[in-house]
């Protein structure tokens, strides 16, 4: 043993004694130690890190959220100014907002990945049904945090999002209007609206999330981490627990550090990616002030709900109210029913092709809707520029037609050579497709999803417009 001065030996001995005494009175090692070292099945690899990473993202949200709340003023009239102060003047304010935004994004993404992993590996089967149910609630709460958080940005977009939310709630039969009033906290967006969303986002939902995370983690420890599935090894409830305990006794590893190191490495990676994105990309820019009388607005949800924005645009109006009210309910119900539909049998995705099909379908549906929501072809293009003369051509009638095409709003919905909206058909080569008579009929009478223009065009204007459109050829 190398020489150590006497005082160093004493300090070391004293520290040990102090720790032992504290540990004895606090009872740390028997509880925390056993928790950390509880045995986990072998083979749990990198796919098992999404749950803990979601928790880490949530912790980032708590910490950055507390910091932001120290400067944010939850008042309808002043929140926007306080956010401008946080973003522009407060030291670290901009990057803090960025971390909170990308932390939210990470949480949504990771909770989604975690759900998919658990579903594909059927880890929700006996005896972990309640793990799944508490997790489903946490998934819903995460999305709710995303929506309410976007509203706290309290810019023009947020104000219209509250109104859109209230209008959706008002579609619920019988008490829809009460729900809408509850969301707006009155007759319209006003002084009472924001403080309620603040309380919900900052106090209520986080408290429920803490509660459910506690239950979720407790259940993970109580039932043990699910072993990686193997085809041909079905879950049999009467014998599963004994089999699982025997397996752990035989080949289990202590969670810390044998399995936990992967959670740490991935979690730390998530933290650094969030911070890097906050630094490089930055927080979402604040929109215009929350003035409901500024009607030049393009309300859009943040990326995690952009696919739902597409749903609202694309469902047929006749079934729309049903979809708005029932779809979220049915989706939630389906999620909650998963462990009740089958809590035994095969767990391996290789033996559960339907599970793979469900995940691929869901991911594809959300992906396609997301892309559609990002493009928003159904929205008129209010900023379409005038068609350049080079495009319109030399003939005066055709040029007049091109001007009318812009002024009378045709261009908001129809594009020509890449200029204009995408709501209606592209008319770049309309001259090849439609005769003069067909064009006149369509313009005057309108059509499916097109307003009639008979009342708003003189005969010579119709002629000019048709001359312009007839000149659009390949």
């Amino acid at each position, binding site marked *: 043993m190398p020489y150590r001065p006497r005082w160093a030996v004493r300090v070391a001995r004293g520290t040990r004694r102090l720790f032992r005494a504290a540990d004895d009175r606090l009872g740390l090692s028997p509880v925390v130690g056993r928790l950390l070292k509880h045995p986990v099945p072998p083979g749990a690899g990198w796919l098992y890190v999404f749950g803990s990473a979601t928790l880490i993202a949530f912790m980032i949200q708590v910490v950055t959220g507390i910091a932001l709340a120290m400067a944010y003023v939850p008042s309808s009239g002043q929140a926007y100014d306080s956010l401008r102060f946080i973003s522009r003047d407060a030291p670290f304010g901009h990057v803090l907002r960025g971390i909170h935004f990308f932390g939210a994004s990470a949480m949504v993404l990771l909770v989604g990945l975690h759900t998919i992993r658990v579903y594909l590996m059927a880890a929700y089967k006996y005896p972990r049904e309640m793990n799944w149910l508490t997790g489903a609630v946490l998934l819903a709460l995460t999305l709710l945090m995303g929506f309410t958080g976007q509203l706290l940005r309290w810019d023009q977009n947020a104000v219209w999002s509250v109104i859109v939310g209230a209008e959706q709630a008002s579609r619920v039969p019988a008490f829809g209007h009460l729900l809408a009033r509850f969301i707006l906290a009155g007759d319209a967006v006003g002084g009472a609206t924001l403080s309620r969303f603040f309380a919900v986002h900052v106090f209520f939902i986080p408290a429920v999330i803490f509660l459910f995370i506690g239950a979720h983690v407790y259940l993970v420890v109580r039932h043990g981490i699910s072993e990686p599935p193997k085809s041909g090894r079905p879950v049999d409830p009467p014998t599963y627990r004994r089999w699982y305990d025997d397996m752990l006794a035989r080949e289990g590893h202590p969670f810390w550090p044998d399995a936990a190191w992967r959670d740490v490495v991935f979690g730390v990676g998530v933290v650094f990616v969030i911070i890097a994105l906050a630094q490089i990309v930055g927080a979402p820019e604040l929109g215009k002030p929350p003035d409901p009388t500024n*009607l030049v607005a393009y309300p859009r949800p943040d990326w995690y709900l952009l696919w739902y924005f597409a749903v609202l645009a694309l469902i047929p109006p006749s079934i729309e109210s049903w979809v708005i009210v029932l779809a979220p309910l049915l989706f939630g119900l389906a999620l909650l029913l998963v462990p009740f539909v089958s809590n035994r049998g095969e767990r391996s995705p290789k033996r559960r092709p339907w599970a793979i099909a469900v995940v691929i379908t869901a991911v594809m549906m959300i992906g396609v809707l997301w892309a559609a929501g990002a493009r928003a072809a159904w929205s008129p293009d209010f900023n379409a520029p005038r068609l350049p003369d080079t495009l319109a051509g030399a003939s005066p009638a055709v040029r007049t037609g091109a001007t009318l095409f812009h002024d009378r709003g045709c261009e908001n919905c129809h594009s020509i050579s890449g200029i204009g909206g995408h709501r209606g058909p592209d008319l770049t080569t309309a001259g090849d497709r439609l005769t003069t008579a067909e064009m006149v009929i369509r313009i005057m009478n309108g059509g499916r999803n097109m307003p009639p223009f008979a009342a708003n065009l003189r005969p010579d204007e119709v002629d000019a417009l048709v001359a312009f459109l007839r000149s659009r050829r390949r």
Partner: protein
Amino acid sequence: MSAEPRTTQSRRRWLAMMSAGLSGLAALAVATPVVGFILSPLWKRAPRIWRDVGPVSDFAIGSTVEVAFADSSPLPWAGVTARTAAWLRRMDATNFVAFAANCTHLGCPVRWLPDAKLFMCPCHGGVYDSAGRVTAGPPPRPLARYDVRVREGRVEIRTMPLPTA
């Protein structure tokens, strides 16, 4: 336990029931004002009041313009959010029509395009003609209209709760 006299058992049952009942009572006593406070907007309806939006002479016959006015009961800290906008059209010397700026689909702000004579919604592409009738897109109903009146040479609009349906 079974060896204990009946009276002890029934006493225990009574104590358990009493404790649960008392706790429930305390919870109810706290919950009543809390829930009542949170739900109060449901039954506290703001009055619908007339708001001045300017002298009649400010509006040209046939033109449709945006007007802004204060909500019916603005809170002192509401700031700009206490304001509401509507599309006001002067029909003739004394008659006005005011359309709600909220699309009947999901409440987004419709915009009046004066040359196209259409209202268009930026969210999901609802289109209305100059009378506020739906001509394209998902809106289920025509644009809502505010009550408008002219009093002593000034145009007044009567506030209306959201959603406009």
